[in-house]
């Protein structure tokens, strides 16, 4: 069915037309190399690679993972080889895939770190856009303070926009009282797009050992469990900002993508689902196409904001 029908899955994001609105989420796809053994990454709308910091980081001790009802906790702690190696050893590999925009997730400790990483990445021909990770809950000073205070977030965004020659997406934390205020602050400071949500802070107790299961004690909750929280935040944020929003949180199927699009997202990122099934992204794209066929939707753009009272959202 999916092969023969003329559904237009493409969406416009930051001046580019993506084949479809589905991309793997940062930290859930490494730099693409491993999954490339399973399918052609050129099928993806775009790819968001692992958080990149100025220097190499080893991350947190193990255990770093726990399973929870319909979800998981992680406390990876931004392990990555540092921006130099990412640019030299990782990003060029992705050139072989046709029309695959690469978004690099950037993390750090202070504004200066972030600025320095962006200064380097912005010169790379391999980088389509930057996703500012001001929302990682798993590192002390891992950026989450920028993700919970609108003023700090705005200052960060302005500093980054001053040096970036590529579009800047700001990834928001759900661990806030008022995500709309965060979104508005980032938009006003010049963010080109927003992505949400990052993980919610959670904890599991190992009752046999009588201590928190994760070595880091707390971790970030992801997976289907958090989807209703993410959908609501996307809905509320897109009521108030005009820049595009990328929806993230618990997407497992094409139907889930439809839910985020209808809530107002222009595109989505798929995280945890990649761990459950390496073929998750292409399967989800197929399911999205099938859903459109079954519901006589000829372009996914028709779905963006379709559940809103005011009707459709301007997709770009």
């Amino acid at each position: 069915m999916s092969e023969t029908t003329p559904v237009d899955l493409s969406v416009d994001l930051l001046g580019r037309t993506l084949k479809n609105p589905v991309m793997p989420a940062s930290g859930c796809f490494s730099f693409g190399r491993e999954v490339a053994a399973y399918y052609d990454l050129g099928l993806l709308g775009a790819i968001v690679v692992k958080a990149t910091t100025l220097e190499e980081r080893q991350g947190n001790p193990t255990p770093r993972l726990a399973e929870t009802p319909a979800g998981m906790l992680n406390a990876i702690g931004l392990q990555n080889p540092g921006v130099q190696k990412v640019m030299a050893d990782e990003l060029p590999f992705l050139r072989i895939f046709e029309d695959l925009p690469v978004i690099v997730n950037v993390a750090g400790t202070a504004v200066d770190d972030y600025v320095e990483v962006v200064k380097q990445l912005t010169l790379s021909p391999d980088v389509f856009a930057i996703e500012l990770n001001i929302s990682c809950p798993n590192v002390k000073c891992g950026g989450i303070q920028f993700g919970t205070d609108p003023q700090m977030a705005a200052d960060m965004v302005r500093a980054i926009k001053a040096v970036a020659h590529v579009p800047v997406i700001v990834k928001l934390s759900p661990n806030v009282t008022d995500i709309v205020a965060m979104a508005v602050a980032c938009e006003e400071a010049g963010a080109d797009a927003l992505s949400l949500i990052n993980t919610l802070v959670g904890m599991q107790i190992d009752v046999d050992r009588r201590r928190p299961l994760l070595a880091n004690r707390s971790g970030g909750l992801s997976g289907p469990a958090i989807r209703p929280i993410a959908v609501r935040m996307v809905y509320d944020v897109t009521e108030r900002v005009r820049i595009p929003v990328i929806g993230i949180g618990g997407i497992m199927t094409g139907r889930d993508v439809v839910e985020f699009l209808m809530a107002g997202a222009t595109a989505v990122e798929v995280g945890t689902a990649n761990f459950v099934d390496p073929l998750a992204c292409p399967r989800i794209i197929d399911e999205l196409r099938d859903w459109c066929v079954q519901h006589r939707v000829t372009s996914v753009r028709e779905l963006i904001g379709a559940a809103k009272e005011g009707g459709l959202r301007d997709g770009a």
Partner: protein
Amino acid sequence: MATVEVVEQMAVGDGLFSLRFRSPVDLRLAGAYHPGQFLHIRVSDSFDFLLRRPLSLCKADVSRNELTVIYRAQGEGTKRLSRVRAGDQLDVLGPLGRGFPIHDGDRHALLVAGGIGVPPMLELAHALKARGQQVTAVLGFQNARHVILQEELMAYGTVHIASDDGTVGTKGLVTDLLTDALCTGVNRYYACGPTPMLRAVQAAMQGCSVPGYLSLEERMGCGIGICVGCVHPIRRGGDVKQVKTCKEGPVFSSEEVVFT
């Protein structure tokens, strides 16, 4: 990744199960599998068990294209897996990871394993024997009801057993059996088991200067190298780095492995 048919599920001891299923890959292909690799298995399609469970390849039947894992049903996920029956569908990823390297110059290999670290030793013993090596196995169990694969391994060589309570073999730890006499003439050892055992084996074998491999056990998210959850500190060159055990392991040279 593939959905394959379960051929047989069998209790093989106290809370221990042997699960045989059609291989998701053609085992006749070169490099299709290697002892020490693991299968990453979805225990149910429910989100209650979102993550796959890593279980070591215990036995590969090439002619029937079937794989066997042996596992302990301890947590909720493996308990659920133990309800699967012949004819059911199973979602299996793998075989994954790097298994035990086999060195053709070796003449005598020592296999050291504890508890649910024993299963990968069966396919390993089979491969070593096929390459003409002498195999000696030293196994540790909690007690007699937890013994697995003793007879199967005896088909490949001598098997020594230790148990925590002395209900089978020598009372004590596997490392108590790693005497100088036992290690004499051994070219290499291969170990799998809980972390404290591996640490003790590493120390003991370093003492008698036998090189070897350790199969590490870390919690895995993806099993394919994309979540960076399963790392272990590994010393390479001068540096200690957090290396993904699913992709570059689970088997590492003993001297590389850092226990903190």
